[in-house]
């Protein structure tokens, strides 16, 4: 799993590539620290190239969401595939995020 974070015009984009399983989540937790420190503006979680997510991955998403909520940021989850959408649905995450 690799995460590419870009910041442009007050829009922070985190692009997830690969499987966000438990070990990957431990890595990603470090990668997204900059976002958690300044969770303002629009935060786009680009999941176009993410093939899998586990509960720990979901936890990462939830952490960002919570941080953004506290600071008035806006989190958008973009381009999740159907399998992951199923998981989001199962876990009620569809209700927690703005899905594009």
């Amino acid at each position, binding site marked *: 799993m690799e995460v590419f974070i870009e910041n442009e015009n007050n829009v922070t984009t985190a692009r997830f590539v690969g499987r966000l*399983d438990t*070990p990957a989540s431990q890595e990603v937790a470090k990668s997204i620290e900059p976002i958690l420190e300044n969770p303002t503006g629009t935060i786009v979680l680009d999941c176009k190239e993410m093939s899998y997510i*586990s509960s720990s991955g979901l*936890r990462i998403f*939830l952490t960002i969401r919570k941080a953004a909520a506290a600071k008035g940021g806006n989190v958008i989850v973009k381009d999740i595939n159907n399998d992951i959408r199923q998981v989001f649905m199962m876990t*009620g995450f569809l209700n927690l995020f703005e899905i594009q």
Partner: protein
Amino acid sequence: MKKIIEFFKEGKSMETWGRLTLVLMAAIILEATSFMQQRFLARSTRREAMIKAESVLSTTRYEIMDVVEQAEQAIRDNMWIAQWCLDNPDSLINVTRRIVEEYTAVVGSTVALVPGYNKKLPFYAPYTYVKDGEIVFTSLATAEYNYPAHEWFIEPLEMGMGYWSEPYLDTNGGNIKMTTYSRPVLDPLGKTGAVITVDISLEWLSKHVGRVDIYPDAYSVLVSRKGVLMMSPSDSLAMQITLQEMAERLKSEKGFSELIDGMLSGKSGMVTVQTAEEGSSSVYYAPVPRTGWSMAVLIPEREVFKEVRRMGFLCMLLQILGVLMLIFILLSVARSWIEYQKTKDVEIHLERELEIGREIQMSMVPKVFPPFPERNDIDIAATIVPAKMVGGDLYDFYIRDEKLFFCIGDVSGKGVPASLLMAVTRSLFRNISAQEDSPAKIVEGINRSMDTNDETGMFVTFFCGVLEMHTGRLRYCNAGHNAPLLFTDHVQLLDVVPNLPLGVEGSMVFQEQQINLLLDDALYLYTDGISEAENPRHELFGLERMEAVLHERRTAMEHLDAMKAAIADFVEDAPQSDDITMLFIHYLNDNTQNNNMARHLILHNDIQQIPQLAEFVETIAEEKNLDQALAMSLNLALEEAVTNVILYAYPNGIDGLVDIEAFIREDCLEFILSDSGKPFDPTAAPDADITLGVDERSIGGLGIYLVRNIMDTVSYRYENGKNILTMIKKI
């Protein structure tokens, strides 16, 4: 000398003493032969000396006789003139002169009248003699000389015949040592009128006939009838001493009296005389006829045997040299024997070290059989029968995570380098396979780590397999090794891609293959020490013999024992040239039971192992043709369940296992998770409330919720110290 002492100190073996005895025997035989030779030589030399002496004796005698004859002839020739001149004594001087002039042997002559025969001249003896080469006249009829009193005058008159006088020094004439032959001169009436004489110089005689040159120190003596020396090596002795005196002078010890008796009695013969002066001498003697003299040739023994002794000495010298050479040879043989012994000691030492090396080597591979007595799903046996030298064969196997990892290999070459490389290969196999399940990856890892330097040019043919115990799936990778035999319902060579041996090309990508083993299938791995075992007729053991041995139904160990016996029978007394290594794996798990296909995965309690689950689910999905979405959710459920165990079942830092079994059935998939951690029932936790908003949602609790939602049945039990979570998914 030092060496000899060392030799005696060091060489105490029977062989050495044997050799020494041999030398002594040789020396004794040599000496004995030489002694006999000397004896024969001495005997023939003595015979030769005798022949020589006798010939000298007879030659000298003839020469003397010749002189005697000349003297007697001189008188015979002039006898008639002397008779005729008896009446004219004045003419007698001419007779004597004629004799002296005519006969070279004669140095003086006289015709001495018998006193009273001629009234006018009662005493008359004109004498002619040679002095310093001149002919000189004198008269013997002087008062001082008084010739009628002399032996030469008296004896012939008395005997009425010719007479050779005893030697004497003539004081009247030339003052020379001489002997005189005299004969009576008769007148026509038969009356003795005078005595006619000729003188022979003994000095001249000595010079003329006395030389004896057969031996440098040999000499001849002429002895008068009274035993006076007339001719001897030293002129000064002649006439002055008798044989008896000579014996005394030479300090005779024995034999001289016999010689004197013999010579004086006119006999001929040989005696050995012993004197202090000259040692032992052989004396040959014979009489000189008519004169009453006796002639002898003396040959000192030391002369005769001088040559024999010289040769004897030479022989002895040669023999000593020979014996010395023998000893030298013996010493060098003994030394090289000792060297050889030392080398042998070093060799034995080296051999012992190699043996220890081999023991260490052997201790690296599993040697206890059966290796997994608690298991009934596998029967394994393996063996290495080492050749004389430490070789480079190896095998290894162990079970990790319900997978049997095994390998067999053969390092090129022999000896210590090969065994070191073998040890390296074996530990690389263990280290890499601890982390890696793919045989190709294991082989590649070993190959990469192996120092592929071209200096040694060593390589390893290697076969590595990973057998999943529950399913019978065998993945394998061959690195230039002999294809193993595969026993299913028939025997065949396992289909292998040869690839390259290890240590040839570090970056080599190895191809992996796989088959599924069923109950009772078996795999026989071996090194070329078996297929190429050679008998004395240079035939190879070969595959067919190998197959024939394995044809019968036996346990793995019995198979290997039978194979060893078959090879031993085949090679007869030919020496084993290469290690014989075999590994027999008999798969005994009934993986076809109930149409179930079991899958098994064992993970450590390490988050990093989670990705293996994806692969695990992938294979199941392939088996069952599950769709992508279901596969992913199964993966997710398993990951959540496993993560739960990894995070919570074991205390921090404690290594534990999570065992995942998957049973693929017609209508469902059953997953059984078990661990030996503390009892923990994940199903007891309350479900996460997914209806809560962002602020109220807790971070945790999602995992088990996902499991419950994905799986149709989730149940927990704690049994035999294990947490067992069973999850069923209908399909």
